[in-house]
């Protein structure tokens, strides 16, 4: 067998392929070892993360800048990464009394993030516990913040009386003070919901209905008054216009009479003739316009003109 092996090894081709194979195997083996070593001693931190290096289970170092870093292989050191981005905590709705004793239902929110990963892992350990702690802190301070605010600091038609900014700033300051010791940072606290207890909303609806009834009545009354004003104004305009027209008419007639006056004055030279002519003219007009029954006596002017003719007729009859 050994001779056979010697024989096999002895040929030049066998020697060449055997050497190449060994080199390839060695290369692959070295590459695998390098990769394994890198895997065990390097870790990367992404730009939205922070990492804590635990040496034998204890946090010893923080890595907050993104990039690759070195560590001892497991079990000496291992890495815990945390997401340091902003998170939302929505607090539950709670009934709270305001400074002036009005009950309101308030819901708040907190925008927070992990600021100190090492402290966070030491004090809390995971995001769930952080959320629970923040909720508890929020509950404690929320009632205090609202109870030191009057009702019209939360809703008022006078915008200058609203105190949302102050309430939210006070809540943020209170939460931040406690969150710092847990490795957290509170970026914002806000009121996301404001309501009233159920029984209070019943009386709100009753008031709204009564207000609407009053408003509807006022609107109708205003409409009627406006309509009356419009009509009266139009009537007054009509009267004014007619008055002006009548004055104009009188002026026109006065001017006409003034124009006619010289003719009339001329006729004063023989008043009897002038009167007779007027009577004849009147008689012509009456007889031209009317086609109905006329009843008169000779006493009536201008029918007194007929008196002489009447008397002559009577005398002839006698």
């Amino acid at each position, binding site marked *: 067998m050994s001779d056979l092996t010697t024989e096999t090894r002895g040929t030049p081709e066998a020697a060449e392929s055997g050497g190449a194979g060994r080199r390839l195997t060695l290369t692959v083996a070295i590459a695998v070892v390098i990769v394994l070593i890198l895997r065990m001693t390097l870790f990367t931190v992404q730009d939205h993360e922070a990492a804590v290096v635990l040496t034998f289970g204890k946090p010893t170092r923080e890595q907050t800048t993104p990039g690759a870093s070195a560590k001892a292989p497991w079990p000496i050191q291992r890495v815990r990464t945390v997401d340091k981005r902003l998170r939302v905590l929505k607090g539950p709705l709670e009934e709270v009394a305001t400074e002036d004793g009005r009950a309101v239902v308030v819901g708040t929110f907190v925008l927070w993030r992990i600021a100190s990963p090492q402290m966070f892992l030491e004090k809390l350990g995971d995001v769930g516990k952080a959320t629970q702690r923040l909720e508890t802190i929020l509950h404690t301070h929320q009632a205090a913040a609202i109870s030191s605010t009057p009702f019209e600091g939360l809703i008022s038609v006078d915008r200058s009386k609203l105190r949302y900014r102050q309430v939210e700033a006070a809540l943020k300051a209170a939460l931040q003070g406690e969150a710092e010791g847990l490795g957290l940072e509170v970026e914002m606290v806000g009121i996301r919901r404001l309501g009233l207890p159920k029984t209070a909303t019943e009386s709100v609806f009753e008031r709204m209905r009564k207000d609407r009834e009053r408003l509807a009545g006022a609107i109708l009354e205003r409409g009627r008054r406006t309509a009356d004003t419009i009509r009266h104004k139009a009537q007054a305009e009509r009267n004014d216009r007619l008055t002006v027209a009548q004055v104009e008419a009188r002026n026109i007639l006065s001017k006409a009479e003034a124009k006619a006056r010289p003719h009339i004055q001329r006729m004063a030279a023989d008043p009897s003739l002038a009167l007779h002519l007027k009577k004849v003219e009147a008689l012509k007009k009456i007889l031209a316009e009317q086609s109905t029954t006329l009843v008169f006596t*000779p006493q009536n002017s201008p029918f007194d003109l007929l008196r002489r003719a009447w008397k002559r007729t009577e005398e002839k009859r006698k």
Partner: protein
Amino acid sequence: MTERLPSESRAADALEEAVGLAFRVLKGIIVLLGILFLGSGFFTLESHEVGYVRRLGQLDTERLAPGIHWRWPVVDDAVRVDTRPRTVKLDGFDLYRTKREIAEGTDPKREGGLDPARDGYLLTGDANIVHVELAVLVARRSPHTEADLRSVDIDAVTAVLLERAAVHSAAYRKVESLLKAKTSFLDSTRQELQASLTALEAGLEVQGLQLARDLRPSPQTKLAFDYVGQASQQADGLRASAERLADRIRNQAVVEAARVQARASSRAIEIVSDAAADRRQFDALLPSLAKGGPERRRALEDRLLADALNGAFDKVGEVFLVAEEGPLRIRLERDVTKVRRELQDKVRKEAGGE
């Protein structure tokens, strides 16, 4: 050196060949794996995406356009960012609806008060209640990764900030002005939301804010609000009717005034022309009267009368000339036959008496 037996030589050759083949195959596999490894570095970006390469955890600032790109596998990560604006809906200020009610688009029935744990609403500045559903359109600001680097869930952050902005915007408005001027409410809510996002450096831009469901009062007060609407319509109707009547009155006044002036003008012309005509007639007659005495005057007057009466009696219906003295009785009777009979009887009696 011992000589090999022929059979031993063949076995050695076969083994040598097998080993050589195995190494060639192994080489081939390694080359193939290498190609696959490098090939896994290719990635594509869709038309609505931009891309960044994260190398050892750190983002490269170079923004990659849509298309095909390559990066080192394992070492580099390809980060895709969808640049399309996203819509965040907020129904926290609306009544709770069942699936059926949502499908039908109807409001649920409610009586009595509202449980804030179930039904949402906005409180107005005059302590009234309205419901609304909002939808906000937000887009990532450049660099597009800012939003995702800033918060774990950008939709959740947007939603709570929108709730806060809406509560603030409603808190000083009266319910009437809120329901009438919805655009103003949306504008102030949008501005407050954008201010909050900018202050937080959230990397988001508000592109629009709309009413997903309209601002409206609760079912418990809907009828009362409708009543106000009806009263407004009625009042408008009264005003419009009064305006129409006023227009008619004014127009009639214009016509009447014109008629008065026209009548006066016509009468004025008549007065002047009549006076002129009378004077002409007077001037024509006066010289002849001046020459004669009273007889001539009487004759002239009779002639004038005769001229006036000439032809006039054709137009007049009936003329009764009654005596100057004695009683005058006028009887109006519908039944002419009856009157005729009575007159005939009277005449017969008078004739019989004579």
